[in-house]
């Protein structure tokens, strides 16, 4: 039965494919398609796959012992710890801020809304180095608050708080940017329905608003986390590169590289590359979930 169906399909499609040369009105000639796909593949290979493979190749070139030693030596472990701490503080804070900002922008009308949207985008448009400098200018020894901080023995620049601040600033947009369009598309009717049915603000938020954006929120959080761990420019300015104390993973890579310790540099870099790969995998998974969810939304 199956076979029979198959043959019938072939007999119908054969004359179309060979005899008539039927093709869609919007199709390009074969050579155009092949050239474009080829260019894209060459580009991807040269700029993505080769560097990625070379990171792991260089990291493992001198054997796994060297590799393991490079990522378990005290300075590397401290760098990993600091990176995790910075992300662990920056991501939850930006999660709260992003949710609150997106909620306010998408569901309410107020003065200064456009200004708020612009401000959220600011870290994207400002060079990370400038973001770092802003904090040096405010909290540094020669900065506005510098003398007062020094008097009270509070260290921000060239210390962990500065790194956390810079990381927070650079990663502000990720979650809010992800949620605003989603929440705007969903509108406020469900919230209104909930309030009419007697729900208070918290019930409405936790039972209606939040579940409706959970995949978008997760997606934004993953991106935010990846950036928080990988940020170099802003953190580099405020860090001071004190080994074992204010070095994050990307800074540690730079130091090792500058010391011609290539094997160790690539070993630590491979951790960041792994992080990127895991992020990509998670992102793809969440995106597919998200798309399924939005398909639902469009049906509404």
């Amino acid at each position, binding site marked *: 039965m199956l076979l029979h169906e198959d043959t019938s399909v072939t007999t119908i499609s054969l004359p179309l494919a060979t005899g008539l040369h039927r093709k869609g009105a919007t199709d390009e000639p074969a050579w155009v398609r092949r050239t474009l796909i080829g260019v894209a593949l060459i580009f991807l290979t040269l700029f993505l796959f080769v560097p990625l493979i070379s990171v792991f190749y260089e990291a493992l070139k001198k054997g796994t012992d060297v590799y393991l030693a490079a990522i378990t030596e005290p300075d590397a472990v401290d760098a990993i710890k600091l990176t995790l701490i910075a992300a662990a503080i920056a991501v939850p804070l930006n999660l709260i801020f992003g949710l609150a900002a997106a909620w306010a922008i998408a569901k309410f009308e107020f003065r200064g809304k456009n200004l708020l949207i612009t401000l959220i985008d600011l870290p994207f448009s400002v060079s990370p180095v400038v973001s770092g400098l802003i904090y040096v200018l405010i909290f540094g020894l020669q900065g506005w608050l510098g003398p007062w901080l020094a008097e009270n023995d509070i260290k921000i620049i060239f210390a962990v708080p500065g790194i956390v601040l810079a990381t927070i600033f650079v990663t502000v947009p990720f979650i809010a940017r992800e949620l605003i369009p989603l929440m705007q598309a969903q509108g406020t*009717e*469900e919230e*209104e*329905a*909930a*309030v*009419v*049915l*007697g*729900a*208070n603000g918290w*019930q409405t938020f936790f*039972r*209606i608003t939040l*579940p*409706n954006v959970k995949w978008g929120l997760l997606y934004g959080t993953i991106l935010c986390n990846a950036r928080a761990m990988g940020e170099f420019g802003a953190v580099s300015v405020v860090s001071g590169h004190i080994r074992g104390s204010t070095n994050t993973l990307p800074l540690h890579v730079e130091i090792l590289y500058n010391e011609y310790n290539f094997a160790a540099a690539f070993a630590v870099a491979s951790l960041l590359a792994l992080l990127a790969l895991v992020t990509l995998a998670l992102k793809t998974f969440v995106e597919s979930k998200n798309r399924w969810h939005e398909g*639902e*939304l469009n*049906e*509404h």
Partner: protein
Amino acid sequence: MSIEVRNLSKQFGTFAALRDVSLKVHSGELLALLGPSGSGKTTLLRVIAGLEAADTGQILFQGGDATSQHVRDRHVGFVFQHYALFRNMTIFENVAFGLRVRAKAFRPTEAEISNRVHRLLKLVQLDWLADRHPHQLSGGQRQRVALARALAVEPTVLLLDEPFGALDAKVRKELRSWLRRLHDDMQITSVFVTHDQEEALEVADRVVVMNEGCIEQIGTPDEVYERPASPFVYEFLGKVNLFHGRLHRGRAWIDGLEVDAPEHTEAENLAAVAYVRPHDIHIDRMIHGGALPARVFHILSVGPIVRLELIRDDSEDKELIQVEITKERFRELQLVRGDQVFIKPSRFDLFPSQVVH
């Protein structure tokens, strides 16, 4: 529960959505707010619900002032045009929501909730869909779920914002008569917004016709259709023909026809317009007394009513006149395109025209 609205006004920027609107909804009544888009009908409904605050004016529920009461505390049921079902919940949880969010002291037990939800889902004939999600339902089913959800909290008032606006014509008709039956069974004071005059006239006990933030007329479907209070209501509710003429001390001259106009005895040589429904025009092949000559331009004879489009012979403006006659009358007259006929309005309303030519 009766609703009273007193002198409501509401402004959106420079746009006046409501201008000094007053209205009484009797207890147990099904009232339609009818008007074109931008007429303020939805705003009025949302102000009654508490989803929107009026700039000035008062809302009274059963005589008590509810103007500053929070929407949560008004105990209204609200049905949205686009259903607004909670997409992350099953149908069961959607209907149960209003009961689950109650403070502990007022929350029914799980068994009671389950009982009530299933009873309501049976009422809207969707009990078998309790475990589905909203996106798995058709539009008509979703709107019935939305209604069950609104009824679950035992509201004192049911407010529906264009409840059938997003549905296709057939489902809309079904749900319309279904809503009427449901209302007759439950006797809950209901207000629904629509821009569909057929829907309003068919379902409602009384119709409120709105235009540009004001109420043009309140009356039973019969009253607003047969005795429109203004040119706007005439034109909004069904087809109408306009005949231009003059009014003078209780007499009117409309395109050469002289008629009595007893309600306009004070009029002093005013320009006026006569509004005539298509079925209120008498048509004949012979002239009997005062009548206007016209020519048959188009015949549409589908169904029991035959619709004719005529062109006036005597007037320069080639405006078509719509006439509706029964199929029997049509056979009697044996009209074909191009025939000469004589027409005479058998019933009409005269309004002094705003713009005097």
